[in-house]
């Protein structure tokens, strides 16, 4: 069974290539354009990993991350922040909130794919 990935970003110009990338790598995907939408989708879609932007309209990425981590059923969900906020402080905050990785924009596609693959595979199968 393929892993499921939720992409949360309000910029379609980012969402489209990333979604393509993930599908090419054999993952099934869904997208959400806001934090609220993401929270709604999670219980239905139950993703294994979320690619999460920080600057979203309304609820921001940090808040979404916090909500996910507070729910014990969602503990297994991996979270990667993908964001234009590149300051050290933001990165630190993201990791403290329980994110598994923090990738600042612009990024190379290979890096995202590798990170996703690393987080979703058992350690012994790591590439």
């Amino acid at each position: 069974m393929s892993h499921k990935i939720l992409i949360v970003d309000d910029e379609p110009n980012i969402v489209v290539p990333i979604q393509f990338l993930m599908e090419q790598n054999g993952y099934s995907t869904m997208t959400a354009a806001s934090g609220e939408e993401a929270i709604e989708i999670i219980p239905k879609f139950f993703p294994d990993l979320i690619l999460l932007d920080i600057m979203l309209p309304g609820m921001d990425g940090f808040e979404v991350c916090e909500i996910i981590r507070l729910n014990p059923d969602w503990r297994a969900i991996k979270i990667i922040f993908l964001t234009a906020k590149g300051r050290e402080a933001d990165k630190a905050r993201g990791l403290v909130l329980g994110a598994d990785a923090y990738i600042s924009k612009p990024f190379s596609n290979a890096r995202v794919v590798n990170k996703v693959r690393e987080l979703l595979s058992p350690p012994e199968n790591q590439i």
Partner: protein
Amino acid sequence: MTPKNRFWIFAGLSILATNLILLGAVVMFLRDLTSEESAVLIQIISNHAGYLFVGVILIIAAQGLVLDAIFHNYIIPLSKIADETVLINSVNPSHRIKVEGGGDIKQLVQAINDGADRYEDLFRNVRQKINRARAEADNEKNIMAVFMSELPQGVLICNAEGRILLYNRRAGDFLSGSGDWSETEPGGREKLVGLGRSIFDVVDRNLIRHALNEIDEKLKQNETDIVSLFVIAGHDKTIRVETVPILDQARRFKGFLLILFDITNELESENRVGFILQELIRDIRSSIAGVRSAVEAILEYPEMEERRRKCFNEIIHKETLSLSETVNRVAGEYYDHFKTQWPLTPMPDYGLLQMIARRIREKLEIAVDIDSAEETRWVKVDSYSMTMAVLFLLNELKKETGAAHFSCTILPAGRFVNFDFSWRGDPVKTDALRKWKSKMIMIRNEGLPLSIRDVAGHHSAEIWCFVSRESGLPCVRLSLPVSESETTGIRRNITILPQSKMEFYDFDLFDQPGRISELDDSLLTDLTYTVFDTETTGLDPKTDEIIAIGAVRIVNGNLLRNEIFDHLVDPRRDVPIDSIRIHGVKPDMLEGKPTIDKVLPLFHQFAEGTVMVAHNAAFDMRMLEEKEAETGIRFINPVLDTLLLAAVVHSVHERHDIETLAERLGINVTARHTALGDAISTGETLLKLIPLLAAKGIGTLKEARAASRKTLYAKLKY
């Protein structure tokens, strides 16, 4: 007991004693007579009782007349002489005694006056020498004063208790907006900077305490860099404060120096640049992310379907467009920001043209005539670089076309002012102008590391060539934007050297303990006074209103002419003609002035913590009290009255009005019957009265008030 009473008691007692002796002699004489002799004597007396009675009355009357003559010719004059001699010896050496009296008295007066002449000569001599020496010291002081007042920083020196000993105007501006009370707008509580006032009124006590603790630590550690920094919000400004301790030789803490820097612009600038930069980074990150991701996908999956590739291409195109837009926007913002940092000074257009014309004549030796618009507009320029740019251009023009004469005209054109330089001769070619515009400015050996284009850019100005339609003459036009503000924001105070008094410092305050609490036992010489006067529409406190309040502060025996309060007040009623004759304030001068409920709180604050002084204070205080219900302002300050104090000092003199008093004490009355003028005269009177009171054993505020209460005039209550 007054001298008058003393004399009459003495006279009465002596007459009584004389008459008792006479009576005794008569009784003895009667006892010595035989019965026949006394019968004869009684017979004689009863036959001539009328004569005897008249005789006795005449004797008593004669005694009375003699005594009265002695009283008026000797006793009263002597008292006056005694008082006035004290005057000569203390506060007014040019006072001369003018007393009518007996011949001896006149001789005595003459002798004292002669002595006073000699004393005054000597006094004047010494004074002159002192003044000469002081003038030199003052000169140096004034240089320091000018230096201090022109410093871009605010400077404040305080003693260990936080009382202000010295401040410059800038410090006043930073902390209270205006150091000048006559300019203060009524309404709202102003923070006050003034000599002898507490620094804690204007700067949070905790901040200073923290700074001093920090300094104390550093002193203990023997650190060399003993300064503590904090930032406060001043009057519409952000101020960085540096605190430096002042120590005596034994390294004991005597006070502290505060240096105030206005960092408002710096902060704004830093914040602005920071903000622009952050926004730029965020936008670029976001756009590049889309582009990169799309490009990498295309490269990695060359066999992707056409529809998808097209979609990715569109993403790339859109994001690069948005990137270009971002770069343009940020560049514009940054340029605007940079421009506001460039020091351009406002000046009138005609002034700029005159300056340029003069330099053309001097430097290029070309004849110029000027024609100007009637209305003056202001432009913001760096006059040196702008003049050089125009000069350089005209010089190149002269070389190219041989023009030997320029006509300059100023033409307003909407938000721009055009400076046109036209000449008779060939027009200049556009490509030549373009070449000159980008060359470094250089005229003979004087040059700038800038081109005309740079200078024009800094000024948001345009320079181009054309041939005028009206005159047919070729013309170079400099087009400068009109500046909205005419002020530079920097105020300079012209200080005239030897005469100017530097009253904003008083180092004698260094060693004074906090004194507001124990005012009553304070010496009169140590107190801080607010000497004030009111002008009113009339003399009835019930119906008349205040139209002016003037006040001046006395700190440490110095009348501070810089720290004044001077406000006209709208009385909200008519001003009677009779009163105008006295105070000279016409009703139209009061139009638009604040009402008493606005002015009184300001005055209350001005007088806070001081002793209030007025001439005939009972009246002025009564006028203020009348307003208590309306304004809720109560003056609980101790009050002294120069009228009463004068009566204490000179009990034999009858007149104590301001003019007579001032003349007696040798004070020049300058602006009589303006509130401020009278307040200043009253203040000077108080300063002269204090040593005279001390000579009478009245040293403290408590004693002065007790003595005032006893004088006759105190019965005059409003």
